[in-house]
């Protein structure tokens, strides 16, 4: 999967075709993620941040903000208040 092509939401969603993932594919793709094809590991097309070991109750945007708060795709979509609210949960994780 060429990261440069992954700016497109549909392209990201298509990478999950046939992937068994504990999180809804559309929600992952909306949050900037595409499947690496290895297990449940995903990457953000913009910041390159990767995440795996997903739990069913997790929210892709929340996890994005928790681990990669500097991603400007995240900031442009969710805003600084959202990122702060995740980052200032206590204690973290």
């Amino acid at each position, binding site marked *: 999967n060429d*990261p*440069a092509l*992954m*700016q497109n939401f549909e392209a990201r969603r298509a990478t999950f075709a046939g992937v068994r993932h504990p999180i809804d594919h559309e929600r992952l793709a909306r949050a900037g993620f595409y499947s*690496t094809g*290895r*297990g449940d*590991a995903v*990457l*953000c*097309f*913009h*910041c*390159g*941040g*990767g*995440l*795996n*070991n*997903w*739990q069913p109750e*997790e929210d892709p945007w929340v*996890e994005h903000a*928790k*681990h*990669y*708060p*500097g*991603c*400007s*795709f995240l*900031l*442009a979509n969710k805003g*600084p*208040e959202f*990122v*702060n609210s995740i*980052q*200032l949960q*206590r*204690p*973290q*994780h």
Partner: protein
Amino acid sequence: PGPGRVRRDSLQGYKMDASPCGYCLIINNMEFEPHSMLKNRKGSNIDCEKLERRFKTLNFVVEVRTNLRQKQIKHELLTLSKKDHSQYDCCVVIMLSHGTEVNHNRFPGAVYGVDGQYVPVQHITNYLNGQHCPSLQGKPKLFFIQACGGDERDMGFEVSPDEVEPSSGGMDDQTDAIPMSSSSDSLSMSDEPDARPTLPTPSDILVSYSTFPGYVSWRETQSGSWYVQTLDCILEENAATVDLVTMLMMVNNEVSQNSAKGLYKQMPGSFNFLRKLLYFRTQT
């Protein structure tokens, strides 16, 4: 031991009772070289004095460095990282300077030396990580960054809006490979069930930015910057009883409310990779 301070859960909190607690390095860049095209930062000495006093009160060994070039900033950080911190519980770095946007998925942004050359925040934090500074491993490393651009009236600067551009995967030195193991800073991250980062996670690091990338940061020549003023007040009033992350939430609320009255908005940001609560030990 101070009087009557109740700590909720010491298991969840970092040990912070070493005396002194640790080093605090303040880099205060006020006067910029003409070729840097950056204005002098009037009011920054007020910020610097406030924070010097504040962190001394919080039991830190404070050192102030003024008007450093990029190489000197790096040298000071390297010197700090080479010190033996094994008797200490914490380390604080405060940067007061102009800043600029640099993309990074964890610690974006950069801080200027007086020569107009910048140091990315990510590099600043790296000096003190577990790998480069073993005696701070598992201990909280705090970075406070007041960074603003130069403006005609010496008040602030509007940073160009963040552009969303595709990453080709090589935008920083952490994304050139896709390691699937999440083991990094040994001590942490072994027992959480969350989605895990597939890149090494910085642990025990907190960066508090005066402003998010793409937002202005305001400084007043008479009273110093909004962020530092607010941070100093919140620390003064609450450090004895409230944990750091909660105090930073108070700072964010206050600064963003303050700025909401004006034309521009300022929203401080805290990028928090601490694993426990942090309570400062205040002097009595």
